[in-house]
């Protein structure tokens, strides 16, 4: 009895970890496994292994053009939101101006408001302004909700930057521009990169806001939603699994690079 409780005490963290990761990864594992399912019509029951889905990822109408839309929108929205958000973060993190506390609070609002409300109000605005719903209204909507996340992420990085490093650079003959280029930017860059990845993944899998403002344009999440009722093709699993693998590779590569840097 005592032995048993000691064993538990020793391995509790390990057990907890295994349970936690199982909980997190079962849905992903399911997605990957069912991407190999030899399905007919609906990909809900296991019918046998096949490579077919991976060989024909675009073998379902619209799936790849929708994926293309999602990627294009994601990249544009990420690019714009990262630049604007970084500029705002520097303004908030580095300059004391009138109304800064207010802006600091307001920047959280888009993150805190329900997406349904944001999506609906954006739709109203677009219609009132006479915009044609479609690709660009989706981009505008995505930029809007991504900016807040970029600002918050980059600002945290700027706040953790010791101002004495920039002062030391200036003491060592670097003017404002050189100081920014050589010290400030390289030290904040990992935060900006993280913010960009976050923005992309937020944009890529956004459904609710997109659904309000997409008009006739379909993104990958909309494709999944529209097809879910009729039975989702396993090609959707293929694309989902691929996204997961790409993300995994990026994370691993990032870790290897940063570890190498530490050792070097």
């Amino acid at each position, binding site marked *: 009895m005592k032995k048993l409780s000691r064993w538990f005490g020793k391995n509790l963290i390990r057990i907890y970890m295994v349970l936690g990761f199982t909980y997190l990864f079962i849905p992903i594992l399911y997605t990957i496994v069912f991407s190999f399912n030899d399905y007919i019509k609906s990909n809900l029951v296991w019918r046998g292994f096949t490579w077919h889905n991976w060989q024909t990822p675009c073998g379902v109408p619209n799936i790849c053009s929708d994926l293309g839309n999602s990627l294009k929108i994601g990249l544009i929205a990420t690019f714009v939101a990262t630049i604007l958000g970084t500029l705002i973060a520097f303004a908030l993190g580095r300059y004391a101006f009138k109304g800064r506390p207010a802006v600091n609070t307001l920047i959280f609002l888009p993150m805190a408001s329900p997406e349904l409300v944001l999506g609906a109000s954006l739709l109203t605005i677009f219609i009132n302004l006479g915009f044609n719903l479609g690709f660009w209204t989706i981009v505008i909507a995505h930029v809007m909700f991504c900016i807040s996340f970029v600002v918050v992420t980059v600002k945290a990085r700027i706040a953790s930057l*010791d101002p004495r*490093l920039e002062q*030391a650079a200036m*003491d060592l003959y670097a003017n404002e521009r*050189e100081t920014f280029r050589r010290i400030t930017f390289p030290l904040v860059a990992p935060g900006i990169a993280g913010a960009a990845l976050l923005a992309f993944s937020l944009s890529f899998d956004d459904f609710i806001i997109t659904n309000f403002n997409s008009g006739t344009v379909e993104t990958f999440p909309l494709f999944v939603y529209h097809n879910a009722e009729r039975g989702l093709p396993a090609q959707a699993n293929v694309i989902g699994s691929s996204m997961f693998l790409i993300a995994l590779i990026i994370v691993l590569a990032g870790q290897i690079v940063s570890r190498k840097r530490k050792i070097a």
Partner: protein
Amino acid sequence: MADASTSAKGDLKLANVTKSFGEFTAVDDLSLVIPEGSFFALLGPSGCGKTTTLRMIAGLEVPTAGTIHVGNTDITDMRPYKRPVNTVFQNYALFPHLSIFENVAFGLRRRGIKDVKEQVDKVLNLVELPHLAERKPTQLSGGQQQRIAVARAIVNRPALLLLDEPLGALDLKLRRQMQIELKWIQTEVGLTFVHVTHDQEEAMTMADTIAVMNEGRIEQMGSPADLYDNPKTAFVANFLGQSNLIQGKIVDSDGDSHVVDLYGQKVSVLKRRTVAKDSSVLFGIRPEKLRIQPDSHDKPGNVLTGGKISDVSYIGVSTQYQVEMPWGQEIMVFEQNDDGVPPLDKGDEVRLSWEPIFSFALDGNEDATAGVDVEPEAE
């Protein structure tokens, strides 16, 4: 930038420099001249405004009032990168994303010097860390980082080098060694050093001039020997070494001396060593200047009788006594163990004597304990 950073040369002059943070005055109407090529030490307790003073000289803080000149150039509002000044920061402030080599080369590269390798290697050798050139700052110990911070500044050979406790994290042996190196660099290259330290021994051994700072003001400035022998305030007397300060009254004058009454016993002090506003004085004598004898002895010079030894600590070369005087004050005495006489015991009745030229007198309205308990502490 290269020309701007080398053009200004000459004495560093601070005139009525004040720095306030809101209500709080960190540096209060500070005026001083640091001659070109000198080794100047700023000594004072934690929070007295030493770093703030250096930051104003470096251009990282704008004075609330006053001006700063190097030679005839007014640098009060000059951008930091235009000043002929480099700083060794108290917290090192090494660039975490750059290698040690690039940290040290930073200033050289910014001034457009292409071939930095030779100079960087030389200075890394000087601080004895050439093997760490390719590492990142986080992979260095505190003491190693500190030496790199020194190297990063001196490689630029600035007209004026500001050192904010540059040796605080080093052990005693390395510290002594670096002190010698720094002093050597300073004399060899003829740079002006402004060296901030808590360590009075460091200040005494390295500096030509020491300024003792307290609560944003300079209490006293002078050569190490001058400060030690002729303190002008109770703070300096207590902060630099130790002093016995006894409340007294000038009762008479006799040639070049004052006669001072200390709780009924008469002693004398040179007029030129007296700083007094009125007849009330703090009579001062350093512990090592006192001689201690059994109370029956008769000795010429100044004498205080009626003491009783309350504590003895024998520390090899000398013996330290605490002597309780009739008026209740504890007096410290350091006696060299060079006369073969065995130390006196606790409880012995003793008299204290000294050569009158060794004593000094301060304004009697001062707090006799000022500067006593401000222990030098590192951050």
